[in-house]
């Protein structure tokens, strides 16, 4: 078990470094940062000045190594735009995004698992159909648009909830609905197919034959096994939500990490963009690692298999 965790941890660390290399090079190779910072009207000498000032004239590898050396100490340098430490800006915004992601995930799980179980128990009935329709609609709507329609319905028409901001808990309801609904269908479908598979297994039939009550069989025996892959998916979804929060935060003008990244992208503030990309990737890597460990604890069979990517 310890060996398994150590191996997973090693892989996670390697992935983290690779992601940082890739995101660093992608940003530096997509265009000339100095030109982007100096602006369209800048003369050639001004661009050169910017290049020297921000250290962009040195070889890419030197720049990367220096950046990484500081990044592992959580020092992402200063913002090009605000002359503020990037880490402070991130620390200020991160709680909002984490709160939003957490609530959205919770909402998604609270709906997805019961709905998935019901759909499996009442397979091919109207309950199953309704669950499928809910899932299919959720996957089809662009989240930014669903967010806007929620504003139209609950803020403009019904006056129940605020349009934008992030000061009160009411501000989190609509964005969490929009993000959560997007994540819910996949979890619901996985719960359903997992339950269907497990309910046909021999040990469930045995449990039933022994006279154990239906609900005990469903919840204690079947659900526990069906839920294992859902745990992994939930971790992955949370990672995606942190990355996808840039859209929802912009719709609801929430001052979270996504909004910070979006502002930084529009201002060519690359130290900030770089830091946010890396931090979100680290969260994703950490979460998938955690999911692997939880899976291994729940299902000993997984420890021996090579594991999926």
């Amino acid at each position, binding site marked *: 078990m310890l060996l398994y965790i150590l191996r997973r941890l090693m892989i996670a660390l390697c992935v983290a470094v690779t992601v940082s290399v890739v995101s660093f090079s992608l940003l530096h190779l*997509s*265009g000339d940062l100095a030109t982007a910072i100096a602006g369209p009207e800048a003369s050639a000498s001004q661009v050169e000045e910017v290049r020297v000032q921000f250290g962009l004239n040195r070889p890419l590898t030197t720049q990367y190594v220096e950046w990484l050396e500081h990044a592992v100490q959580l020092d992402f340098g200063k913002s090009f735009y605000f002359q503020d430490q990037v880490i402070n800006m991130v620390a200020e915004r991160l709680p909002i995004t984490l709160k939003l992601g957490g609530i959205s995930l919770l909402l998604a799980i609270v709906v997805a698992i019961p709905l998935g179980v019901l759909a499996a128990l009442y397979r091919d*009935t109207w309950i199953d159909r309704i669950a499928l329709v809910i899932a299919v609609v959720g996957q089809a709507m662009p989240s930014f648009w669903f967010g806007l329609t929620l504003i139209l319905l609950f803020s403009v028409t019904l006056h129940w909830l605020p349009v934008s901001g992030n000061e009160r808990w009411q501000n989190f309801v609509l964005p969490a609905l929009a993000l959560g609904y997007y994540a819910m269908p996949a979890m619901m479908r996985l719960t359903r197919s997992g339950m269907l598979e497990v309910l046909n297994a021999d040990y469930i039939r045995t449990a039933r034959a022994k006279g154990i009550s239906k609900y005990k069989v469903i919840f204690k025996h079947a659900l526990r096994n069906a839920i294992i892959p859902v745990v992994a998916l939930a971790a992955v979804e949370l990672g995606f939500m942190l990355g996808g929060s840039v*859209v929802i935060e912009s719709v609801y003008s929430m001052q979270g990490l996504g909004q910070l990244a979006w502002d930084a992208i529009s201002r060519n503030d690359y130290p900030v963009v770089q830091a946010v990309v890396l931090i979100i990737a680290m969260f*994703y890597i950490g979460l998938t690692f955690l999911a692997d460990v939880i899976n291994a604890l729940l299902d000993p069979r997984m420890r021996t298999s090579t594991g999926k990517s």
Partner: protein
Amino acid sequence: MTTHTSALAATRNLQSVLKPLPLWRRRLRRLLGYRGLMLGAVMLGVIVLAAIFAPLLAPYDPYSQDVSQRLIPPLWHSLGSWEHVLGTDKLGRDYLSRLIFGARVSLLIGFASALISGVIGTTLGVLAGYFGGRVDAFISYVITTRLAMPVVLVALAMASLVGGSLHVVIILLGLLLWDRFAVVTRSATQQLRNAEFITAAKAVGASTPYILLREILPNIMSALIVVMTLEMAHAILLEATLSFLGLGVQPPTPSWGLMVAEGKSYMFFKPWVIVIPGVALALLVLAINLVGDGLRDINAPDGRN
């Protein structure tokens, strides 16, 4: 013991009902089972035809502005008229015409980027699945790394540096969305690797490229088409998102995501300016997903993903 009427009993009841008329009921059930696929195919067909024949169908030029005709509401509104069935936008352009031409952008981007990512992902997946060992370990690592990158953020940052445009969006999404292709083709190839017909092909001296292209590829095609539909839908949603944030397709090109962005500041008073393009997007993605789900159900009828 009333609690014994379980879900299993319910399905058993259903089966006993089916017994007297097995053949036609079974056929009907099968057709009904593919109802989603049929519905999706019809919807997708209509949208594709509308996109192809856009110049014939659109009542107006989607680019022609008329400031005297700004923000006219659609037909069902009390102030609507047959002149502009879906109304006009803030520049007085006919909304229906822009919607029809917008279908071209969505379909083109969805198809082209799914094609690019399909080539990348399938190549990686087939190689990993067929050769296994170190090749597999390396490619799996590449897939894991790709999954850890926040796609929306990276796409936004790159689009901002390169400058958003139709081509940039296609290439960016094509380069970023290959992960599912790779994961699915990898496991599909792994299942085929030791099949008898592969061993037979090796025995008669077929070259490795021949086996990969002529033996493996046709056999994973059905799985590949399913992923292709899902990734098309994914790419269309991401294009809309990028265009909504202003880093995708640039104005005045009619893109549904862009139409939502352009209507955003008017949505409190004229909600239809965002509702119409959003519904169009949702319907297109829904149609593609229904086709994809239907095809998957045909391949794996026991309802597993």
